[in-house]
């Protein structure tokens, strides 16, 4: 199996989906000859032509709205938004149309679209290029929010997203686009959506994260292991709807939980998970649920951004504290 980067796996999945299904259309700014600013769509236009790999005008609302229209006609659009900071004009279309088309028309029309966008900080990019506002999307009924953390899952989950009969926002962890490498077999097999992946089993504490942050979370689990603490690491992967059973099952086993996300703390998705555990697993808890998150600030520009993101140290400290509680 060839070793590849996460962004290459995205490209592979797009190519595979387009090969398998003539209805799949890729659209966005610079996705054609340029192959996208991160090269996620490189080579696709040469292979599938400019009608199926479509350079749109510079208009994000349009990209998402076009996807809705195409999807209602049974075309399977995969729109690209260059950075998450430019996704906001699409929110109107996601909230008011894409996510509710099926329900609104009681199944007469559906919206099987995918909107892809890079997610998160840590690439020393300009302002507005480092956002991680996934909680905002996860709040929208009818939507799926998916975020891979490895090349293998990028490939399998993106295929699943494209084949899914409902709208999916697919968040790609920018920081590990090239840093994450792994073996990916181009077998056309999708991974399941709505399912969390247990990356590492352990009995002492549950660490839950998603996207690029799993890099630090896994490193923290290594550090904890050196101390004799066996951490279970869960990659949530689909945030909406999320796999409550895996979360609750793990916490029932370990009694301790640390949630790690790069996004700001207040109203972040960690709060949702903590509330679920408080409601449904309180009696298994041996320590308060902890959150290690970005601070409640605007994502700082390059010189400070790494200080906003959870570090391995912060995760290890929180996990140790949970293990020492009581």
């Amino acid at each position: 199996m060839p070793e590849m980067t996460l962004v290459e796996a995205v490209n592979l999945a797009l190519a595979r989906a387009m090969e398998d299904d003539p209805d799949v259309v890729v659209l966005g700014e610079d996705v054609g000859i340029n192959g996208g600013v991160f090269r996620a769509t490189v080579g696709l236009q040469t292979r599938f032509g400019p009608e199926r790999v479509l350079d749109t005008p510079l208009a994000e609302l349009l990209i998402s709205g076009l996807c809705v229209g195409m999807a209602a006609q049974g075309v399977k659009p995969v729109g690209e938004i260059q950075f998450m900071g430019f996704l906001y004009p699409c929110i109107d279309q996601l909230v008011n149309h894409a996510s509710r088309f099926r329900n609104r028309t009681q199944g007469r029309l559906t919206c099987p679209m995918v909107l892809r966008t890079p997610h998160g900080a840590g690439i020393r990019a300009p302002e507005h290029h480092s956002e991680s506002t996934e909680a905002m999307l996860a709040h929208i009924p009818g939507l799926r929010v998916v975020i891979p953390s490895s090349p293998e899952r990028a490939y399998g989950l993106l295929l699943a997203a494209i084949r899914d009969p409902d709208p999916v926002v697919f968040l790609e962890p920018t920081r590990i686009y090239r840093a994450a490498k792994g073996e990916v077999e181009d077998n056309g097999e999708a991974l399941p959506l709505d399912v969390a992946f247990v990356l590492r089993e352990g009995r002492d504490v549950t660490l839950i994260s998603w996207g690029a942050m799993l890099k630090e979370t896994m490193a923290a689990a290594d550090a904890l292991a050196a101390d004799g603490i066996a951490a279970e690491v869960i990659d949530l992967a689909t945030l909406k709807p999320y796999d409550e059973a895996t979360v609750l099952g793990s916490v029932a086993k370990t009694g301790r939980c640390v949630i790690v996300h790069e996004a700001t703390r207040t109203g972040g998705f960690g709060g949702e998970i903590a509330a679920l555990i408080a409601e449904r697993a309180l009696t298994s808890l041996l320590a308060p649920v902890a959150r290690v998150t970005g601070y409640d600030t605007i994502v700082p520009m390059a010189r400070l951004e790494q200080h906003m993101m959870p570090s391995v140290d912060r995760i290890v400290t929180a996990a140790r504290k949970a293990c020492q509680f009581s």
Partner: protein
Amino acid sequence: MTDGGLPVIARFEVRHRNYLAPDGSINRPLPAFASDANLITALYRAMLLLRNFDRKAVALQRTGRLGTYAVSLGQEAVSVGIASAMRAEDVLLPSYRDNGALIWRGVKLEEILLFWGGDERGNQFSGPVEDFPFCVPVGSQAPHAAGVAYAFKLRKQPRVAVCMFGDGATSKGDVYEAMNFAGVHKLPVVFVATNNQWAISVPLRLQTGCETLAQKAIAAGFIGEQVDGSDVVAMRAAAEDAIAAAREGQGPRFIEAVTYRLGDHTTSDDALRYRSADEVQARWKEEPIARLRNYLVSQKMWSKAEEERLAAECHERVEAAVERYLATEPRRPEAMFDHLYAELPETYAAQRRQLAGEGDA
């Protein structure tokens, strides 16, 4: 050619189309279909049915049996004229004030009542299954129309998307973004702006500095035409031309239908707060139904007896639809989870069971 010393590199024009004067007399030679008595009386029938339907809908709202409703009073020629030029396989993307177009396309009156009565089943459309439901967020359907038209082009289907919105909507970026894209790809889409002079209480002159809305198409690279929106002959003719051009691959068109909203914005609005009764009264002289009736009568295509028969017919049709609407079984509360996803994820299925009283999620 030069102008003020600088070369003129482009000139544009916007045409205005009208055939029937407000009194029903003819301004210029009519298009061929106007002599087809069946067709032209069908347009008349549809407009009158719509007016009856509107009146009943308002009565239902006033007596607590319908939610907020947007009337078409004064604008009947726009939606009827446009829809009558479409083929069944074309796709309509309507605004919330386009009941006339839906009815023409075969959506049942009781379905429209269900929608305004607060029931998603109203959007199920037993009629044109690919037509879009009413769009409430103003103008946000324009990018959908471009997407639908792109799908037609991709699949080489000779179909046209017809997108309707109000004058207020033309102030939104959505509409411009969609028109711009449609212009780039010469998509088979017709944009129709119903310029009824008002966006709730905001008059056209506060909506745009343009002399016409039609000229907005120029910036997107295609023809924009201004049409007398109270003249159903003009609306139908303009729509026919635009839809035919789009179907033949000539790209998009834009129609500004200039008309007047004689009623309140919706049943929750009181238009007297922002415009005078005199203004509205003066506009009644231009309204589309009397205008067409005068024409038909002058052409001996319509009689008093036919008018009476039609009035009775409309009444019956509307009453029967209202009965079916009122007799529609309510849905169980947990139906709100139906069609949320193709398959309901377990976590929401648990919420559904809770709502159904079948467990405690």
